[in-house]
């Protein structure tokens, strides 16, 4: 039996960011005075293609120590093979027997937010530049919204572990201010240190990998991993670049320098059409008046030279 993870179903065919929450495990929903821990990790922060997926998982401290750690090989998702990752995640959502809603790993709740290339790019490319919604802010906001969503489902969180690529201290302070009743540990490589973060890491990575596969417009299309260093991704960018719009906005993060360079330099000679935005003139040595003045001061301003 192989079905799509619900985290993927929730985001399929959407150009905008979507979030999925699993059912709260019975042990947590029905229990009282139990210590629930939660892990946060992401997948796909660096790639030029596809969504960035934030994953969380939560369970009781007891379930992590007595069930997950001794029986399952959860680890930093990058240390596990694709097959192992998918097998582990499937145990969290695939019914043990057809028609039942019982899953093997039944003590873990999880959720994901898939931030799409459209939302990543449009946030990072707002104007004026002071209105830019950078990737770190997007990541922090999504993480806090996911935690908030779990709290709203009645889960009393005791300790949250967050894997981060940025400076941990300021981020931890931000989280503690937002959720004063919850303890936070923000650390680099938290996915290798805390099992509950490893689970979140697997959830995020598998969801992103499948979403990338689903972006393909034909079965033989090779998009690669989406990283700018992947030869298959480079080949895809080269073969699919169009002069005016560049690439499909549902697939590519235009805010990445890789895209900007390909569009401006027209490296692959696709006849890329130059498009100039207002911010391109902010660094110009000419002031706004000089930029719009015709080459010769006495020239008549026509609609044509005004816009050119």
């Amino acid at each position, binding site marked *: 039996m192989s079905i799509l993870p619900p985290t993927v179903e929730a985001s399929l065919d959407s*150009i*905008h960011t979507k979030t999925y929450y699993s059912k709260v495990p019975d042990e947590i929903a029905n229990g009282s005075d139990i210590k629930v821990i939660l892990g946060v990790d992401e997948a796909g922060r660096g790639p030029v293609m596809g969504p960035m997926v934030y994953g969380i998982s939560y369970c009781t401290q007891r379930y992590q120590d007595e069930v997950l750690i001794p029986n399952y090989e959860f680890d930093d998702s990058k240390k596990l093979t694709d097959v192992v990752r998918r097998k582990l995640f499937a145990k969290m959502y695939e019914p043990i027997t057809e028609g039942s809603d019982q899953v093997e790993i039944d003590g873990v709740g999880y959720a994901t937010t898939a931030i799409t*290339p*459209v939302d990543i*790019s*449009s946030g*990072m*490319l*707002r*104007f*004026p530049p002071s*209105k*830019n919604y950078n990737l770190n802010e997007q990541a922090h906001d999504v993480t806090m919204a996911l935690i908030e969503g779990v709290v709203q489902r009645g889960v009393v969180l005791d300790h949250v572990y967050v894997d981060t690529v940025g400076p941990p201290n300021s981020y931890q302070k931000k989280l503690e201010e937002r959720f004063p009743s919850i303890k936070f540990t923000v650390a680099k490589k938290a996915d290798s240190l805390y099992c509950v973060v490893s689970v979140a890491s697997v959830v995020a990575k598998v969801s992103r990998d499948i979403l990338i596969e689903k972006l393909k417009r034909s079965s033989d299309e090779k998009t690669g991993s989406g990283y700018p260093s992947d030869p298959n991704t480079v080949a895809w960018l080269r073969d699919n670049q*169009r*002069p*005016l*719009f*560049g690439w*499909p*906005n549902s697939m*590519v*993060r*235009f*805010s990445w320098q890789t*895209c900007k360079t390909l*569009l401006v330099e027209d490296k692959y000679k696709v006849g890329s*059409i*130059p*498009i*100039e*935005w*207002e911010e391109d003139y902010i660094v110009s040595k000419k002031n706004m008046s000089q930029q719009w003045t015709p080459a010769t001061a*006495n*020239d*008549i301003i*026509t*609609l*044509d030279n005004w*816009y*050119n």
Partner: protein
Amino acid sequence: MFWIILNTGMIIEGERYITMKIQFNSNINIENRGYTAHNVPCKIRYSGPSDEFEDNFIFDEDNTNDMYVNYLRGCKIVGQEINSVFDKEVNCYLMDVTGDMDISESHNDKNGDSDNKKLESISLVPVAKILKVINYERDGNESRLVEEMGKFEESLELNELIHG
């Protein structure tokens, strides 16, 4: 097939809106089909046909409050329909310049100020009929969109007072 019209002037038919003498060649047949013109906040260094619009320039389904949302090379642009401020008897065309512009060398206004050159006439032909014009600004800069629409409506009102 869509046309990029950013670098092409748009003229609105109807004498009261014309501030220069335009020889409107109505003998030329234009396509029966109507187009939507998108006035985007960037300079596109190209004028001509493109077959990329159909797959790439699709209104966002999250359009709200009569605002149009679209994306151009990753930038979110938010637009508002312009022609809603015109009365229904006004027609809008995409125009192309044919022949040379007639330019006089000097002109004195009633204050005695002199322009060095003055555009006297221009010969234009309609290329396509525009049914809808949408003016866009960047996401984050919507206040300018509102300001521009306000100024445009004010300009039309002034024009009506002076010429109407």
